[in-house]
């Protein structure tokens, strides 16, 4: 039964990835008339344009290009970067790890922090600590990530204190985690952006569960309050919150772009901005597909959590 539900989700995930690939590839067809000229600019020589057309395979019909591109994705061939001339896979492989560190660090801290603060807020509903937490999370949820990032830089790196580096220095060959202090500000920025959403969702769900009949019943059975919360209430709140966490993690994959640009962090986001600036279509396509894959994976994980915490789905579905 369980396998069947998951199987259905897997098929749907595959459908999403295929559809996204169509969308991402289809976007390139919107490139104005002469794509190669648009990329290289008006001063390009005819030879260079012809070479680029050859390189992009623009002489073939669109569907052929789509299938060879899609086929390439499966074997890790993401095409050739038009800006640098190197392979896209090579360009990205150096950076995937860096971005992953940033995202993983932010996720590991913000998920438990958000859940904890949300539960705390719900238990003190209506009180002063609850409204303070709600207010703070509203403020941080509102601001774009670069605003928060610049605020942190102004406070910790330039204007007020000068205790942390404002930008990432990564000499070639040295990994970013070689200097852990330069990871702090980007990670904190991401945490400050992601956590408020988790707090708010956890709080709302917990309040709903705490008002439910079975929580009142547990209290009327004489169940101690800690057990009421941990055994009866929290498990019911985890399913819905897993969905929000998944959306937030998927967002991390996109929102990391701005943060990396701000801190000059050598990750995928930075590569994406460069690629957009140079209209390096192959790189933009590859990164879009990677981001969609992250979305699909975290959503699958959230579905599993949802099924595991709900016996109705577990046994009946």
């Amino acid at each position, binding site marked *: 039964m369980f396998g069947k539900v998951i199987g259905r989700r897997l098929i749907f995930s595959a459908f999403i990835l295929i559809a996204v690939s169509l969308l991402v590839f289809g976007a390139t067809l919107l490139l104005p008339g002469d794509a190669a000229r648009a990329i290289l600019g008006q001063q390009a020589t005819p030879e260079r344009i012809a070479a680029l057309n050859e390189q992009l395979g623009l002489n073939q019909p669109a569907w052929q290009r789509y299938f060879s591109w899609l086929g390439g994705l499966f074997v890790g061939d993401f095409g050739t970067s038009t800006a640098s001339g190197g392979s896209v896979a090579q360009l990205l492989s150096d950076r995937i790890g860096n971005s992953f560190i940033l995202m993983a660090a932010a996720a590991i801290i913000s998920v438990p922090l958000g859940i904890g603060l949300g539960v705390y807020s719900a238990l003190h509903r209506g009180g002063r600590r609850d409204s303070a937490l709600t207010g703070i999370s509203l403020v941080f949820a509102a601001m774009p990530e670069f605003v928060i990032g610049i605020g942190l830089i102004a406070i910790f790196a330039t204007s007020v204190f000068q205790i942390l580096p404002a930008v990432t220095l990564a000499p070639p060959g040295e990994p970013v985690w070689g200097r852990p202090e330069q990871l702090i500000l980007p990670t904190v920025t991401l945490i400050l952006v992601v956590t408020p959403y988790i707090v708010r969702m956890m709080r709302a769900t917990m309040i709903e569960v705490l008002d439910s*009949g*079975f929580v009142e019943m547990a209290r*009327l*059975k*004489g*169940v101690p309050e800690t057990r009421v919360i941990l055994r*009866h209430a929290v498990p019911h709140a985890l399913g819905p919150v897993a969905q929000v966490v998944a959306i937030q993690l998927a967002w991390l994959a996109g929102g990391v772009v701005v943060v990396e640009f701000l801190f000059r962090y050598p990750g995928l986001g930075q590569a994406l901005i460069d690629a957009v600036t140079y209209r390096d279509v192959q790189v933009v396509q590859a990164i879009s597909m990677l981001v969609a894959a992250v979305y699909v994976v975290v959503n699958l994980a959230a579905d599993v959590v949802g099924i595991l915490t*709900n*016996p109705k789905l577990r046994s009946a579905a």
Partner: protein
Amino acid sequence: MTTETTTVHHDDANVPNEKIVLRVSDLKIATTSGNEILHGVNFALSRGEILGLVGESGSGKTTAGLACMGHFREGLKFASGSVSLWPRGDDTAVEVVELDEVAVRSLRGSRIAYIPQDPALSLNPAMRVGEQIREVLDIHQFGASDAERTERVAAVLVDVGLPGDKAYQKRWPHQLSGGQQQRIGIAMAFAMYPDVLILDEPTTGLDVSTQAVVLETIRQMTVANNVAGLYITHDLAVIKDISDRVAVMLRGDLVEEGPVASVLEKPQHEYTKMLMAAVPDLDGRKTIGEGAAEDPEPEPAATHILMSTGQSADSSGSSNSGGSGGSAASAKGSATAAGAIDAPLLQVTDVALAYGKAQILDGINMVLEPGDCTLLLGESGSGKTTLSRCIAGLNDDYSGAVRLRGTELAKSTRKRTNEQRVGIQYVFQSPFSSLNPRRSIGQSLTVPLEMSGEGTAASRKAQVEEALDAVRLGRSFYHRRPGDLSGGERQRAAIARALVNQPSVLVCDEITSALDVSVQASIVGLLRTLREEHHLAMLFVTHNIALSRHIADNLAVLNKGVIVDYGPTASVLENPTHEYTRTLIADVPKF
């Protein structure tokens, strides 16, 4: 009707009595913003007895019941008074509302147990049922060993009539029926051999037959365990069935208290008398809702169109032809002339409906003549709402035919002609859902006229105002919004919407089930008056067999999509031909 609502003090309940287990004295409870909800309530519970706590919605009966456990819902707080408990084998009383959290927790579930209203919401859906019973025993450290607790879980399950085996204990709540879930709740309550039991409308969501079984279980368990019970309900019939004494609550006051027989047969307080008069009885010895139709703002002089319709109906015996009814009325008139000779007003022939394997309706045949009222009786899942929606054209998945004056109607209301749509009007079950909260009563009531394209804006307004008068709301309700109205007022407005077009058939789908018993009585009274005034044919759909003699000439009993008994009300009730009807009549709490 204004009634003095001071709390009564019954001496016999307050004299020292060794049987008394729990005494509530002068209990006051307020909202956190300071509004008093309970104004000083007194009652006592004795071992082996059940006290019925009766009241309509908003009377504060659940609040009083939960206070016995030292529990106050979100937004409420204890104000003053006392709740004293004499636990078994203990001579000194415990003051429940003054205990600290740990002490009160040790009483809950062990000395005072609670059986909730809706078992589907009160059992933890993510915990196996055996584990939920076991949890009570673990927390209160029942017995000496693990084995003893395991044994107790199985034993108490058997006590409430469920299998006690391991496989059953491993089930999830959603795998049990409503009746079984409620018995798990009862088992949980009795697991620790409590002294006091608080029962909060434990049978409200259940069918009559399931209710009978659950009530029987509760009664047996109470006697066998010598427990003092507090049974909270709005249903006087159930009270008569199960309790020894009864206390009546009204808006936070306890207005009358005493032995069941004396309170129900010789009520002293105005409110109790009114309640008693409002409860429908199966034998139909009294007339419920008499005069109640006239109650809110009677303005009889203003109802000239509908009155004249009524008069013409009285004289000619056919349907209306009054006022600004214009084209529709004349069309109806001709239809009547053509079909009146042989065809009945409304005829349902071989109506059947199935969704996949589930046969919802199976070969339904019914006839309704002008001025007739047929009561369609069925429990939940019998298909009664589906049938009434097929007739109204809201459900077009059926096969068979619905005929109005001999003409077969299209299945969907959108495909029916204007006159056909106007001819059959449908009133929805919940008055809280059937009126658009964003629109005024007047706007909502104008819709039928607007859609049938009759008259001018002014004439429509006049018709709506007359309909409001006819349901005894008065035209001042025209500009009000549903949010300002009580449930009964909303239901009257919904009935008025069905009347503006002067229909010949009115389908009423469980229209009193969401209402308090006194409001139900006044609605039933209103329908009776409207039938006479407008010569309406009516299909009254309900689960409440006790209403049959109060409203209907004919009775149709629907069970699993089949009409099992059909005939004049009196003969069906006195000589039921089908086994199902017989059990239904036997299971209904006698009043």
